[in-house]
């Protein structure tokens, strides 16, 4: 069973998608279903194939096999017996729910969809399935949201390691936030990918873009000029802000000032490597796109 993988494919799904697929991680948590809606939206927009990924975590299954195993409730702290049978049952049920949710989300759409059920380590299984052209959509937190973790370990692992663009979804705030904020750096290719992702969101949401250039990005004047010229790609109303200081708290303030509805940044961005960045991402209540 270990590391086994079953891929269910909807009928008539052609192989080889030129646009890349939309992968959505479904773990049965509430946030994963919210992310499914966002993924379905992207799939509808781009006409891409959507693939739900449900991973039966091998560590979990093994843990349940111990006679002394008990499950401590995330909300109540109450401990109760835990067994393989129960976990297996639960997994089947959740996979079933994921399948239904996927079908429901895609009903009435031409896009192809399928559900991949794998067994193994979640991050590894997802990375196995992900190609560089894909978009990986997942909720900021999975089951761990129950204990108030703002960002799950799977999410953190995937934004660091995924070869594709990762959209870390959270419920969009209802207030009048209306700008896509994109962070750039000195890596031209990475900048290009981030701007592309920002442009897509801007087009979809009909929102202008704010481009943030960190002071420590080490941009030459020539590069800066080129970036300014490229801003046209991002559409009307694009704003450029240069930050002299670029630490997570400043970024938080700037995002608040800009009324950001979505944050886009490259994994190569210097900000991404700063200590406290994970906490920043965790504290932001907005969708974050991390491009390779």
């Amino acid at each position, binding site marked *: 069973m270990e590391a086994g993988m079953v891929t269910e494919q909807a009928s008539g799904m052609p192989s080889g998608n030129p646009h890349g697929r939309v992968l959505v991680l479904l773990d049965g*948590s509430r946030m994963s279903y919210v992310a499914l809606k966002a993924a379905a939206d992207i799939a509808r927009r781009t006409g891409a194939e959507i693939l739900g990924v449900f991973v039966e975590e*091998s560590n979990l299954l*093994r*843990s349940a096999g*111990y006679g002394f195993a008990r499950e401590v409730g995330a909300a109540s*702290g109450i401990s109760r017996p835990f067994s393989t049978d129960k976990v297996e049952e639960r997994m089947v049920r959740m996979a079933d729910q994921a399948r239904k949710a996927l079908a429901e989300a895609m009903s009435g759409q031409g896009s192809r969809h399928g559900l991949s059920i794998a067994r193994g380590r979640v991050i590894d299984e997802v990375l196995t399935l992900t190609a560089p052209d894909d978009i990986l959509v997942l909720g900021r937190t999975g089951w761990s949201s129950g*204990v108030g973790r703002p960002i799950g370990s799977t999410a953190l692992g995937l934004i660091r390691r995924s070869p594709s663009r990762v959209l870390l979804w959270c419920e969009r705030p209802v*207030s009048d936030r209306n700008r896509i904020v994109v962070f750039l750096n000195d890596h031209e290719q990475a900048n290009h990918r981030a701007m592309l992702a920002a442009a897509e969101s801007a087009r979809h949401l009909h929102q202008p873009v704010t481009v943030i250039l960190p002071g420590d990005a080490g941009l030459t004047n020539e590069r800066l000029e080129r970036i300014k010229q490229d801003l046209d790609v991002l559409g009307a109303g694009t704003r450029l802000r240069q930050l002299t200081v670029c630490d997570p708290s400043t970024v938080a303030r700037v995002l608040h000032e800009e009324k950001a509805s979505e944050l886009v940044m490259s994994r190569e961005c210097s900000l991404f490597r700063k200590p406290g960045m994970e906490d920043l991402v965790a504290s932001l209540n907005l969708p974050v796109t991390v491009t390779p």
Partner: protein
Amino acid sequence: MAIPAPLTSDQVYHRCPIEKLDFETTESLEDLELPCGQERVLRALEFGASMQAAGFNLFVLGPSGAGKHELVKRFLAGHAASRSAPSDWCYVFNFKVSDRPRVIALPAGQGQSFRKDMADLADELRTAIPATFESEEYQSRLQELQEEMAKRQHQGLFDIQEEANSNNIAMVTTPAGFTFAPMKEGEVIDPEEYKKFSDEEKELVESKVEELQKKLQQNIQQIPRLRKEVRERVHALNEEMVQLTLGGPIGELRAKWQDLPDVVEYLDAVREDVVEHAEAFQDSDNGPPLGLLARYKINLLVDNSETVGAPVIYEDLPNHQHLVGQIEHHARQGTLYTDFTLIRGGAVHRANGGYLMIDARRLLTQPMAWESLKRILFSGEIRIESLERLYGLVSTVSLQPEAIPVSVKVVLLGDRMLYYLLSHYDQDFLDLFKVEADFEDDLDRDDECYDLYARMIATMARHLKTRPIERAGVARLIEHASRLAADQKKLTAHDRVIRDLLSEADHWADQAGAEGIGAEHIQQAIDEREYRASRIRERSREQISRGIVMIATEGVQVAQVNGLSVLRIGASMFGQPSRITATARPGKGQVVDIEREAKLGGPIHSKAVMILSRFLASRYAGDGELSLSASLAFEQSYGGVEGDSASVAETCVLLSAIARIPLKQSFAVTGSMNQHGEVQAVGGVNEKIEGFFDVCKEAGSVKGRGVLLPASNVEHLMLREEVRTAIAAGDFSIYPIADIAQAIELLTGMEAGAADEEGVYPEGSFNRMVSERLALFAEASNKKESNGDDGEGARNGGGNGH
């Protein structure tokens, strides 16, 4: 008894001595501040207005049209001017109990300033507090706090995870929580492989797992407490920031209002409330909710900024709401809402610290108004409660504003009957209205009064903006005031009548193009008023002149006399003669009052007839029995008859019927009589005399005609000029009589005759003839009785022969 001399024209009219009026027109006269002749009312008002003890409210009683309202208002205005203006009152939100708005008193005129200060503060809150929350300082402190708390929250889990990892135990997330299992190189060991572990190893792992589970359990169970702590610390931070922002503006206000502890306390409550609702101010885009800022408004209920002296308030519609105020509502989508800003004050609020004038009758006709006013006066405070709540008709939640302490002097104005009824039937009334200010109906007419009365007329004229009144006009007015008072020694105090007359005279003067109001214009006004009210009088006279109502004004007639009566219709009254007739025959000493038998006579008339009956018995029957069966009737009278003013006439006509002596029809008689035959005063003599005069005139001539009236009524005579002229010419006579004997002599031309010691009247006198006739009646009665004793035959044949 000597026949009295007829009255002269001077006796029947009290002229105003023109020399007493030392002016040309009223223009030169000074205004009269307070009316003359009302000293009792003025002293009562002075006392009532100054008296501080509880319950000394005033009831000003007097007839309508006496000018009560005008006088009381003028008096109180003068009295109030010397006092200081009372406090302003405002309602503010009660932050502790929201449905009981608090009340704050401020020195007069400062309410507006306080209201503006609070409006400015609310404006400042609207912008300053969101700005504070936007500030970098706040944002970074908030973030620090949140991060710290998140760290603390996760640190526990992280520590457990670390501890587990260091013991080669995995902490695995499950869909519902966490579980622990032994691991090797980051992977959970397969249970089959674990079975190969030695017992010691297994025991070690399992005890560690158990320990970790317990720790995790404890940690998770602490999370709610941690979350609560976060909330509290964020709230404390918000409070701190708001406190700092508010410090300046509230501090300034506190300094400004430091002398008023209530205001300072309120400002502190506002600060606490803003701090408590700091989060609501955070929305920088929409601003704080309007409902929140509305709580800091001031409802200035009583604004005395423009009040000079103590207020004098007249409430012309004294219903419950207008007196005690009300709580209004806004209708929003069919639902009613209210708050403390919709509390409206009433007349008692406005009059607090001053005087409140109310018409008693209007007050009593409004539901619950009287009870509410009494409640306020008893408790010394005003509670605003709706009428429907007082009646218990609604039970919806509403506001219960704090009561306002009240110190008001209530002045009720009403007629005397109301005062006496309230005194009798309302047990609270005399506890609350201890000062009675009773208006005089009439003023004394003496030498000193002319100047004052003239000034009063001058004041009225100026007030009414009429032309100035000439001296003769004032004199005529004074004479008419006496006529209105029906007394030569009095002047009427009803200023409405005088005012109306002045206005009308001014109109006629205007029509005549005169510059001033002369006596002729006054007379024209009097005549016109009389004419306008004369339709019924003229119809009545017409019936007499056409013989439909039979009144004889000449010749003589047995058992028939002219009585005089007065009819009051609306505001006017007139006199007219009535024929009174009598019959007399032997009987058992009874005088039948036909009016009473027909239920047309009132009790006073019945009493007068009983007196008359006893007078006859005592004067003519002596110790013997009065054998008389007589009857008296007002001929052609179809309405009721009341009063005793016809008893002299009734006595005369009855005696005429007994003695069969004719009475002169050229006289009319009025006057009441006691059991001794003395003539007593009656009312309406002027109208009665003028009524008979007019009937005689229409019958052809007044010559030789006259009226007999009680001598004690002479000083009430103020007859009109036409009558006076006839009297002066000796055509028409008025005889003042003091005793029934004088009436008999005037009506019969015979001597009445006084009884000697044995009770025998002189031969040939009127009384002798009456006595003899009564003796004959007695004899006839005795005979009848003795025949009756004989038995059946007598009964069958009896009666006709007597």
